[in-house]
């Protein structure tokens, strides 16, 4: 009886989140409408509740990592002197080299360095209703409640932009809420690099929201590189809407964080809209990396091509759930899923779940999911050429990730991504082996 009573008295994670929100709500930036929007997000989270692994969408997420955090309020990072902070970051080597031709925006602990706060939280207008996070994306509500800044990009014509979200040691014990809002006008082109980097000892929650509107005929090439510190619990919530003939191409690389969860929803709303989602994840130690991607084909002649390659070493756990729904209003749609996992540790796990839900006759759809260990036939072939076992294993792992790494069209970025991958995996030196 005593223990039951004690349990009942212990605050739930939702209690703690809402408590933190109430404690800081008045001090968060924004006007009355902004505060109202935050309050609505808090109310919605209270209504739908904290996710549970009993829910299929969250089955493989490491929710405990998000529930054991000391605080959900934004870290009390001091407003930085932009120039001095930037210089210090460059001296420390925390900033990756700038990819030629790209403009860079830097956010430190959720606040833009040297920039004016650009985000006005959605008001009570139609916009707020449009971006009202559904239950499977509910961790996005955290960012709606707490975020104090945003990278807001409205693109007409062509642009190349890198948005760098850095988490500093000052954020330890708190939370950071990066936010990215994209709007691509008709026929515009954007190449976007989105990076999340964390200082080695910055234990924190990083809860990121990304909303994307790709206008008619517009093209978005979106590179996402997650390199947070192992102490980080990383939640990434993305919602993209594509108009007619729009093309959204994602290359997502997840290497960091102790626990990383990506919840993504892509809506192909206009005729001929197309999505290419290519993702790699590499985990080792006790890392958990989980992605739940939902794609909705709502219009005719829409296309999805989904590729996932994951390597789990030691006791790491990886999961990728790809749900593609083709509505009755989407004849002529084409969907393909290729999900593959490589297990390189006795305690490692990979769960891959392709799922096609088709409600019209005129579609072409295929899916495949395989998980296994390194192919012994391939390994022997390399050994029989005199390549040592260590290098041979590394070569094959490298090749496994190559399906996605090869798609990075920017040589400098590809070299950087390959370097990060090489640092994350055992046996894999940085090598130029990909055709």
């Amino acid at each position, binding site marked *: 009886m005593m223990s039951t009573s004690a349990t009942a008295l212990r605050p739930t994670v939702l209690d703690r989140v809402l408590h933190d929100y109430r404690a800081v709500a008045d001090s968060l930036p924004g006007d009355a409408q902004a505060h109202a929007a935050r309050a609505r997000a808090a109310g919605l989270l209270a209504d739908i509740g904290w996710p549970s692994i009993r829910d299929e969408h969250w089955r493989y997420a490491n929710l405990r990592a998000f529930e054991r955090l000391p605080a959900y309020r934004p870290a009390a990072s001091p407003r930085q002197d932009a120039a001095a902070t930037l210089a210090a970051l460059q001296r420390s080597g925390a900033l990756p080299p700038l990819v030629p031709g790209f403009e860079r925006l830097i956010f430190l602990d959720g606040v833009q360095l040297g920039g004016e706060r650009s985000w006005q939280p959605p008001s009570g207008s139609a916009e707020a209703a449009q971006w009202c996070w559904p239950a499977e994306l509910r961790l996005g509500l955290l960012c709606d409640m707490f975020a104090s800044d945003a990278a807001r990009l409205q693109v007409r014509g062509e642009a190349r932009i890198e948005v760098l979200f850095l988490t500093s040691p000052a954020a330890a014990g708190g939370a950071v809420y990066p936010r990215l809002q994209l709007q691509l006008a008709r026929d515009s082109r954007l190449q976007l690099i989105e990076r999340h980097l964390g200082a080695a000892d910055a234990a924190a929650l990083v809860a990121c929201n990304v909303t994307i509107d790709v206008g008619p005929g517009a093209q978005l090439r979106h590179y996402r590189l997650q390199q947070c510190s192992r102490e980080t619990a990383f939640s990434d919530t993305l919602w993209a809407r594509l108009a007619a003939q729009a093309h959204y191409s994602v290359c997502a690389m997840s290497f960091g964080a102790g626990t990383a969860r990506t919840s993504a929803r892509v809506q192909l709303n206009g005729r001929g809209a197309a999505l290419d989602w290519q993702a790699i994840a590499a985990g080792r130690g006790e890392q958990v990396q989980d992605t739940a991607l939902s794609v909705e084909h709502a219009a005719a002649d829409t296309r999805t091509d989904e590729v996932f390659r994951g390597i789990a070493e030691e006791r790491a756990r990886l999961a990728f759930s790809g749900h593609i729904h083709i509505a009755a209003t989407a004849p002529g749609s084409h969907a393909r899923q290729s999900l593959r996992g490589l297990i390189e540790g006795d305690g490692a796990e990979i769960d891959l779940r392709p799922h096609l839900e088709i409600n019209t006759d005129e579609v072409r759809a295929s899916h495949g999911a395989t998980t296994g260990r390194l192919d012994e036939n*391939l390994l022997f072939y*390399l*050994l*029989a*050429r005199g390549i*040592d076992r260590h290098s041979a294993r590394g*070569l094959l792992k490298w090749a496994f990730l190559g*399906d996605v790494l090869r798609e990075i069209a920017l040589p400098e970025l590809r070299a950087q991504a390959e370097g990060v991958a090489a640092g994350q995996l055992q046996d894999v030196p940085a090598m130029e082996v990909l055709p």
Partner: protein
Amino acid sequence: MSAAAENGVQAGAAPMLEVRDLQVQVGGQKVLNGVSLSVRAGEVHAIMGPNGSGKSTLAYVLAGRPGYEIISGSASFEGRDLFALAPEARARAGLFLGFQYPVEIPGVNNAYLLKAALNAARRERGQSELDAFEFLALVRSKSHLMQIDESFLGRAVNEGFSGGEKKRNEILQMLVLEPKLALLDETDSGLDIDALKVVANGINSLRGPERSVVLVTHYQRLLDHVVPDFVHVLARGRIVRSGDRALALELERRGYDWLVEQAAA
């Protein structure tokens, strides 16, 4: 004068490869049942036999493929216990296996594989690694001999190659690595007449007093182009007959049944 003598083989020389009474099983099933074979430097041996006679098993066991249990017997390569060496050490020591079914390795390009393999072999021989220009010059010359377009070098290993292209790629690798002993497992299978000649030219270009070749084949047609010094017939897991090229011609006329029956008797 025999081909071996032409290649400078000395009758009294110690064998490069010495296999003695080798017995091997796979999954509890005995596949090799006492194979003995002696190959000296400069010699070309052909191992023929019907399906399931153990030809490929012999090649795989000598190259170190896992999954085979050696029950008894021995194999030495230049006096070293072959079975004490890991597969990669056997390769670096100069033993090359040409695969019957070369695997495709998406994501790894041919040039990288060749360079990594060549430099591993050169380090073993105490030679310096080739720089990029030296390597390219070497590979180009060998590719030309094998009638392989240079663009192959930038493609993934064997990915999307035809059967003939894969076999030519195997011989290209062999020519670049310059092994002391080449075990070629049914390199002629799946080749048309022109490709067979190209492959045969490649093999012949490697022949010399310091190198040996063991050809595993079903048919004698490859032996029209690569003339062996010795022909052995493997049946039911052991060598039941050895001879010179005339034996291969006899097999072409009579088939294998008569030898298999003799072996069973």
